[in-house]
C-alpha cells in the first residue's frame, strides 16, 4: 500500500460480523453441518467487533480527518452489523454478500476483505480479536498476511502517531501482563474486549445511516477462493454424567430445575 499524506486524510477499515445472539438455544440442522435458523433467530453484532468500531470512533474523535469504513462479509443478514456500525458513527459501509448461509471459512472472509482493501489505502485495519460464534480469531491476522502488513493481536491499548506513521500497541497476554509493540502504518490490529466502552448507536446516526449509500458487492461461490478447510459435522456436547439427572418431559424437567434453583435460592 502506498502511503498517503497523513496530515490530511487517514482511513480506517473496521471488519464486523453479524452473529447469532449467544443466549439463543441452538439446534443443529438436518445436514449436521450448520445451525438451524429462521426468521425469528436473533442476531447481533459480534461483541468483539463493537470494541473495534468504538476504538475507530475514538481515534476519529482525536484526529478529525479520519474516515471510518466498515465492512462485513456474509449473507444478507450481515448488513445489520454494518448498519449498526454506521449508527454508532462510522462513515461508510461495505457489505460483501456471499451466496450461501452456513460456514464461511476465515480464509475466504479474509481474502475477500483483503482484495477489497488492497487498492484503497487504508492506514489502519481493525477487527475484533475473534468472533463469538466460532472463536477462531483468524480473519485479522490473515488479512495482514494477505496484504503483507504488520499485525498485532489482542490489542488492549493503542496510541496512534499519524505523523510518525506508527502505532504503539499494548497486547494483553497471560497473567495480566502486557506486551508492548510499535508497528509501522499501515497495520492490522485485532481488538480485545475491555479496551473501551462501546457506545450505543444514536438515533441521529441511525437516521443518517439511512441516507448513506451502502456499497454492496456480490460474490458468487465461484469467485470465492477455495476454503482451506470444511466442516465435517456439528454436534452438541455430550451430557456430563455427574449430578442429578432429571426425568420426564421437557416441561416437567424445566419445572423441576426451576424448583431446584429456587430451593437453593439461586433463582427467586
Amino acid at each position, binding site marked *: 500500500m502506498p502511503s498517503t499524506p497523513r496530515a490530511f486524510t487517514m482511513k480506517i477499515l473496521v471488519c464486523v460480523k453479524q452473529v447469532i445472539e449467544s443466549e439463543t438455544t441452538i439446534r443443529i440442522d438436518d445436514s449436521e453441518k450448520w445451525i438451524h435458523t429462521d426468521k425469528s433467530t436473533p442476531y447481533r453484532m459480534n461483541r468483539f467487533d463493537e470494541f473495534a468500531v468504538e476504538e475507530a470512533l475514538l481515534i476519529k474523535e482525536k484526529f478529525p480527518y479520519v474516515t471510518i469504513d466498515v465492512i462485513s462479509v456474509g449473507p444478507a443478514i450481515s448488513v*445489520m452489523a454494518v*448498519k*449498526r456500525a454506521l*449508527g454508532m458513527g462510522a462513515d461508510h459501509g461495505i457489505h460483501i454478500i456471499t451466496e450461501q448461509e452456513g460456514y464461511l471459512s476465515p480464509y475466504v472472509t479474509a481474502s475477500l476483505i483483503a482484495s477489497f482493501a488492497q487498492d484503497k489505502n487504508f492506514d489502519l485495519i481493525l477487527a475484533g480479536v475473534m468472533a463469538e460464534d466460532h472463536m477462531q480469531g483468524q480473519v485479522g491476522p490473515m488479512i495482514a498476511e494477505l496484504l503483507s502488513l504488520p499485525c498485532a493481536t489482542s490489542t488492549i491499548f493503542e496510541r496512534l502517531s499519524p505523523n510518525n506513521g506508527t502505532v504503539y500497541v499494548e497486547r494483553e497476554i497471560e497473567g495480566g501482563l502486557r506486551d508492548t509493540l510499535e508497528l509501522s502504518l499501515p497495520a492490522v490490529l485485532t481488538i480485545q474486549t475491555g479496551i473501551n466502552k462501546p457506545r*450505543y*448507536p*444514536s*438515533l*441521529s446516526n*441511525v*437516521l443518517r*445511516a*439511512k441516507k448513506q449509500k451502502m456499497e454492496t458487492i456480490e460474490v458468487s461461490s465461484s469467485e470465492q477462493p477455495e476454503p482451506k478447510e470444511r466442516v465435517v459435522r456439528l454436534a452438541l456436547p455430550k451430557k456430563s454424567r455427574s449430578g442429578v439427572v432429571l426425568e420426564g418431559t421437557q*416441561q416437567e424437567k*424445566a*419445572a423441576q430445575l*426451576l424448583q431446584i434453583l429456587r430451593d437453593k435460592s439461586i433463582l*427467586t
Partner: protein
Amino acid sequence: MDFSFTEEQMMFKEQVIRFARKEIVPRVQEHDLKGEFDFESFRKLGEFGILGLHFPENLGGSDADVVTTVMAGESLGEAGVDGGLTLAYGAHTFLCADTIFAHGTDAQREKYIPKLASGEWIGCMGLTEPGAGSDVASMTTRAEKKGDRYVLNGNKMFITNGPVADVAVVYAKTEKELKHAGVSTFIVEKGTPGYSAGKNFIKMGVRTSHTSELIFEDCIIPQENLVGQEGAGFLMAMQTVEWDRSALLAPFVGGMTYVLNKCIRYAKERYQFGRPIAQFQAIKHKLADIKIFIEAARSLVYRIAWRKDQGRPLNHLDAAVAKLFIGDWGLGPANDAVVLHGGYGYCHEYDVERNFRDSRLAPIGGGTSEIAKKIITKLI
C-alpha cells in the same frame, strides 16, 4: 393510513430496549425499594439521547419525530424500566424542556435545551397547587411585575422532580382577577433567592421519581425568564397535553408488555395440580385480557403521536379517551398480573408488584379520570 414502523424505527427500538436492559433495569428494584431518584440512570438516558430525542440536533437533540419519541418511551417500559424513572423523564423532557423549546426565545432555548437534553440539568414543571388541582385555573401563585422583574409568591404541589430539579417551568398569575387568561409562564433556576423545594413525598408508586412542593417567597425573576407573552401560560400548559397523552403514557403501555412477558413465563413455569397454570382457562384469559389492553392502548397513543407528526391539532376527545383508557382500563391488567403470580405477585421481588403500584398514578397525574370523563361527555 399506514400503521407500519420504518426499519430505522425498529432498529432504534431494539437499541433502546437493549440499552435499558443492560444499563438501567438492573438498578430499578433497589431504587424503587428505597424510593430514591436514580441520578446515574437519568444521566445515562441523556447520554443515550433519550432526554432530547425530539429536539433539533443543534440543541443537543436527534430530530426525532413524535412517533419515534413515543416509541422510545414505550421501549423503556417494555425493557422493564420503572414508572418512576419514565415519569421523571416525561416531566423533564416534555413538561419542562419542551415548553421552553416550543414557546421560548432563541436565547432561552440555547441556554436551557442543550443542558436539559444531555441530562446535565434536570427540569420540572409546576402547575398544580395545594388548592388548585383539577381546577387549575383557580391557582393563586402570583407573579407581580416590578420594573423589569417579576416577584413570585405562592406554592406548587406534587411537582415531579421538584427536589432534584435545576430548572423549573412555573405557571403563575400575572393578572389576579382573570382565570385562564391571567396565567403566565416563567423559568426559575435552582438557587434563585426565595425559591425552594419541599421534602420528597413518600408515595405508593413511581417511587424513584421525587415529588415535592415548590415554594416561592418573594422570589425575584428577571423579565427575560418570562416564556412567551404574559397571559399565554394556560395555553402553553394545555399544549403539553399532547405530549402528556402520548409520550408520557407510552411507558405505561410498554410496561404492560414487560409485565405480560413476565406473566407468560411464570404461567408456563408455575406448576399446580400437576400442570403449568398456563393450562387453566382462567389464567389464559388473564393473559389475553392484558394483551387486548396493550394493543388498544398502543393504537390510542400512537394515533395521538401520528397526528402531531402530521401537524394536525390535538383532538381533545381522542386525548381524553386515551388518558382515561390507559389510566382506568390499565388497572385491571396490572391487577391480573399480580393475581396470576399468586403470593409471589404480592412481593417486591416480582416486578408485577411494582407495576401495580406504578400504574395507579396513570388515572391521577396530568388530569384525573373524572376530568377526562367530563371532557369526553362534553365533546360527544
